[in-house]
């Protein structure tokens, strides 16, 4: 280990260029959009290397609380950001997302409205109540006054999409942006009740960040014109 560090500092000394690294943890649903923001940020800040780590928001919080070296954290919902407590500095909302019904291409079950999801013979797949997309699903069902009886309660949006893409399920509930990202492997069906449950994405600096200035700049870019354009193109709403 010591030898490795020596070698690294020796290299850095030889280069005479200070490479700064900014570590960003972000929810899995932000993968495509944050990769674009990263490219723009690195173009504007030469000598800066942004390292992105994507995962389930809860997973990422566990890692941060376990003292992972992180500068910026972007979560898929407010509740998960709240789990960071004082470690999250100045959280700001930067995007919103709503649910959409997702069906296999051709919509074999002929789903048209949210009420259709209550049909007894329908193979329905949703997120489990413990994960962000699952709690949103429960709220939407309550708002619509529909009793859902899912055939499977999956751990993540990815798992729900997988079952729908494979045609194993007739319908699923995921975010608008997930349907857009899945391309033509699935079809999305919008429903008015979705507007009653809006999921908000917050972003914050992490206490003890090594690159405080860079972290501020990155968050500014996400909140600013670049972020709005990239996120808007992917189907995210503005808070």
């Amino acid at each position, binding site marked *: 280990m010591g030898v490795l560090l020596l070698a690294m500092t020796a290299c850095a000394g030889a280069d005479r260029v200070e490479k700064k690294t900014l570590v960003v943890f972000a929810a899995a649903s932000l993968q495509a959009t944050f990769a674009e923001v990263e490219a723009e940020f690195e173009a504007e800040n030469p000598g800066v290397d942004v390292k992105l780590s994507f995962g389930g928001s*809860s*997973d990422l919080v*566990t890692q941060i609380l376990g003292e992972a070296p992180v500068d910026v954290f972007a979560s898929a919902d407010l509740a998960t950001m709240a789990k960071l407590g004082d470690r999250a500095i100045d959280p700001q909302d930067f995007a919103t997302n709503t649910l959409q019904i997702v069906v296999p291409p051709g919509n074999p079950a002929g789903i048209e409205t949210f009420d259709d999801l209550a049909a007894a013979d329908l*193979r329905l*797949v949703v997120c*489990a109540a*413990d994960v962000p997309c699952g709690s949103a699903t429960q709220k939407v069902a309550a708002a619509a006054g529909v009793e859902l009886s*899912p*055939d*499977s*309660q*999956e*751990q993540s949006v990815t*798992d729900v999409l*997988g*079952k729908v893409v*494979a*045609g*194993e*399920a007739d319908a699923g509930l995921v975010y608008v942006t997930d349907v857009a990202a899945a391309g033509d492997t699935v079809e999305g069906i919008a429903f008015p009740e979705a507007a009653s449950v809006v999921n908000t994405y917050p972003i914050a600096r992490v206490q003890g960040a090594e690159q405080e200035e860079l972290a501020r700049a990155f968050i500014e870019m996400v909140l600013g014109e670049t972020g709005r354009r990239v996120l808007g193109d992917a189907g995210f709403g503005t808070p």
Partner: protein
Amino acid sequence: MTGRGVGLPRWLYVPAMLGVVFVLLPLVAMVSRVDWGDFGSLVGSASARDALWLSLRTSGTSTVLCVLLGVPMAVVLARTSFRGQGILRALVLLPLVIPPVVSGIALLYTFGRRGLLGPTFEVLGLDIAFSTAAVVMAQTFVSLPFLVISLEGALRTAGQRYEVVAATLGAAPTTVFRRITLPLVLPGLLGGAVLAFARALGEFGATITFAGSLQGTTTTLPTQIYLERFADPDSAVALSLVLVVVAVLVIGVARPGRGAS
């Protein structure tokens, strides 16, 4: 330790101890995190009981299926020789080495509603999507090679001497199989069945991919632990311990490899 046999080189003990510590320390760490005060209520919740009961039922069924399918497979592989046997053996043992998630995807494309046999199943009126049957199929798929590989080894070690004698005395092949072959390799068969059961009990990737998760129907204990790890970490740790204890009991009852020695 080794009596008057060949002594072991001293240095060998150091990496051996390191290995033992590497395996045991995480288990000790987990036990140290268990909230003993609430242990009863944590593992006694309805969802936990459902998951444990489902896991035991499906793993038991899978083990029976593994024995029914695996014993003939092992006998054919051990007692016959034909062209391409090596390739066949390698293919049969494939689920040992491919990631469980990949096994799940393969099962989905075979038995799923849009899979290879989907239309056939539909005609027969069988719909296994999101059913307990799908869990059993996933577990059987990943556990079968364990039974085949240990039983084939036992059969080869036992040799064919007694079978040949019985045959020359006029015993029919079925009689030889029932009265000679099976009793000879019974310890190996038990060891293989125990391994298969333990593997089925721990199966997660193929199950979640192929069968999904619904309390009491497809949510096995590993799936329940995966789901609870954030919502209720204490419950996840307690259930993990239950799974470890069951696995230790199973391996203790029939130590794999005991039949071979």
